[in-house]
């Protein structure tokens, strides 16, 4: 019932099937932990390069084991519990952050043979399967569900600490995450409209191969237009509470925000979840817009190239994440909300309309040029009206202040 499209679970479920699923679970778990560790190191090292510092350089070659050392340190630190904390919720909150971070990765295709028109299935111990833990029909909606669950960890951590800065931080966090989820969902909508499926595996299949000129890839980045990709990139940074959208934990204003009162391994859980979410978000962007593990097999076995392309895309996106973090200053809270509600959401809504029009036009064989001209004109008129409405309301507000 939950099997969706994976041929492994279509037939009779015996011991071998269970073992393969278990192997995938362990593999994903290990991959996520190692990737998170390396991501923390990579971010610290790269940001320090951007800032003309040395960064971690003592533990292991190039300081690569620094995260491990920090993890061990966290384990042996004293676990402080504030006197005014709501203890049950205080203990629950870090787990509510970490568990969705792990679950999110279950729907991501992290490998498989998509070259030369293959459908991404690989042979594993004589069974045909996809290299992804679950391929439910609801697919990408599961990611939205998990990211909406992840709000709870942040929210409850701040509330249960019994202290004002964490509380302010978590109020900010919940407003921000709920707002940007809308932009996130709308840009996913554009991808779903283009590929015609919710299943992450089928999304990758639809992006495999090459389009124009047998060279340019068939990615949704081009098929759905660049707008949903840009909106998703911005909204994902806000959803992850990463700089430049980290007003949630703006140190100058809120000390450490929702995890101010946390110490020891509980703080480490928040820290790990944050970076794990970055890795997973990069993987989701790769799946949605950059074809995930799809790519040409240059030599050797095709299934290996799936993983290689996946890693290349994810690392490239993580590089951009860190680059943005190191370059762009933090936005103000009202700027953040303005960007979300007045720019990203209307933009992605308008883009969905234009995209839907083009799809209908292609099905009905309308004249392409006229469709593009009228669609673009309506898009621009809508944009102008929205600009006008915002400007009018701003002018009226300013008038009110003058009075």
């Amino acid at each position: 019932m939950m099997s969706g499209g994976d041929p492994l679970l279509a037939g009779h479920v015996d011991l071998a099937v269970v073992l393969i699923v278990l192997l995938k679970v362990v593999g994903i778990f290990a991959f996520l932990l190692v990737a998170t560790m390396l991501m923390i190191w990579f971010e610290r090292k790269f940001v320090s390069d951007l800032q003309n510092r040395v960064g971690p350089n003592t533990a292991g070659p190039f300081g690569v084991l620094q995260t491990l050392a920090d993890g061990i340190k966290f384990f042996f630190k004293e676990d402080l519990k504030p006197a005014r904390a709501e203890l049950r919720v205080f203990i629950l909150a870090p787990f509510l952050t970490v568990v969705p971070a792990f679950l999110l990765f279950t729907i991501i295709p992290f490998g498989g043979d998509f070259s030369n028109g293959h459908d991404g299935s690989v042979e594993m111990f004589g069974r045909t399967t996809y290299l992804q833990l679950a391929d439910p029909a609801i697919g990408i909606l599961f990611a939205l569900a998990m990211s909406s669950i992840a709000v709870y960890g942040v929210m409850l951590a701040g509330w249960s600490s019994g202290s004002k800065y964490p509380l302010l931080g978590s109020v900010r966090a919940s407003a921000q995450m709920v707002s940007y989820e809308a932009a996130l969902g709308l840009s996913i909508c554009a991808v779903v409209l283009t590929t015609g499926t919710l299943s992450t595996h089928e999304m990758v299949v639809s992006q495999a191969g090459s389009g124009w000129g047998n060279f340019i890839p068939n990615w949704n980045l081009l098929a759905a237009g660049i707008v949903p990709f840009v909106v998703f990139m911005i909204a994902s940074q806000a959803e992850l509470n990463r700089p430049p959208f980290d007003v949630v934990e703006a140190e100058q204003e809120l000390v450490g925000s929702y995890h101010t009162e946390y110490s020891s391994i509980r703080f480490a859980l928040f820290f790990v979840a944050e970076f794990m979410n970055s890795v997973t978000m990069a993987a989701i962007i790769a799946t949605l817009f950059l074809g995930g593990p799809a790519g040409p097999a240059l030599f050797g076995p095709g299934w290996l190239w799936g993983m290689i392309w996946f890693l290349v895309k994810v690392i490239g996106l993580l590089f951009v994440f860190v680059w943005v973090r190191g370059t762009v200053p933090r936005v103000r809270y009202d700027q953040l909300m303005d960007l979300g509600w007045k720019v990203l959401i209307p933009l992605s809504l308008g883009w969905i309309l234009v995209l839907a029009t083009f799809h209908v036009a292609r099905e009905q064989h309308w004249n392409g040029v006229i469709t593009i001209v009228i669609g673009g004109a309506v898009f621009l008129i809508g944009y102008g009206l929205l600009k006008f409405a915002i400007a009018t309301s701003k002018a009226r507000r300013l008038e009110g202040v003058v009075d």
Partner: protein
Amino acid sequence: METAVFVVCALVVLAGGLGVVVSRNPVHSALSLVATLFAIAVLFLNLGAQLLAVVQVIVYTGAIVVLILFVMMLLGIDQEEDLDEEPIVGQRIVAMLVGLVFLGAVLAVIIIGKESAVTGAESVTQAISPNVANVVQIGRELFTNYVFALEITAGLLTIAVVGAVVLARRPTDLQPIPEPESMTDQGDEPLTEPLRSSFRASNANPNDDASGEGSH
């Protein structure tokens, strides 16, 4: 397997429901509600209704309860309450009566109807087309047979949003309370007075509309 999942989820649903009612702290109540809603989502999955399950999580668990919690934190009404005190007189007796009547009705259907009412079948009718995922089926039905219902619901929600915005905005002709003569006409006025009056004026026009929009 399905029965085991059902039993576990049913227990979580009941425990959560009880938690909503008997928790002293409103935040604990909200968390119990989350447990109930999440377990219902798992029950939907158990019945093969994947879309319903995920919508349940995204809409109810991920948005509505988050907003409830958000308002509680923002307004600071998260103090513990005395459960022995009845906020509305007679409310509990009426609630118990209604609950008993409802329980009686359900039991009556099960006992009187016997096999004809409770068949144990998963669905009253067959799937519309057995080989199509239920996400696709629901989408197709919503945008063909039930498109008017869908559009009317969308209109209703839009009206609700606009109404909420109108209610949240203060009237623009709201005049700030005039300062007493004795405080404004003095030359050696401390700096705080004009600052405070301009603060009040800007308060009358919600400058931070954006943060309010986030909660709608």
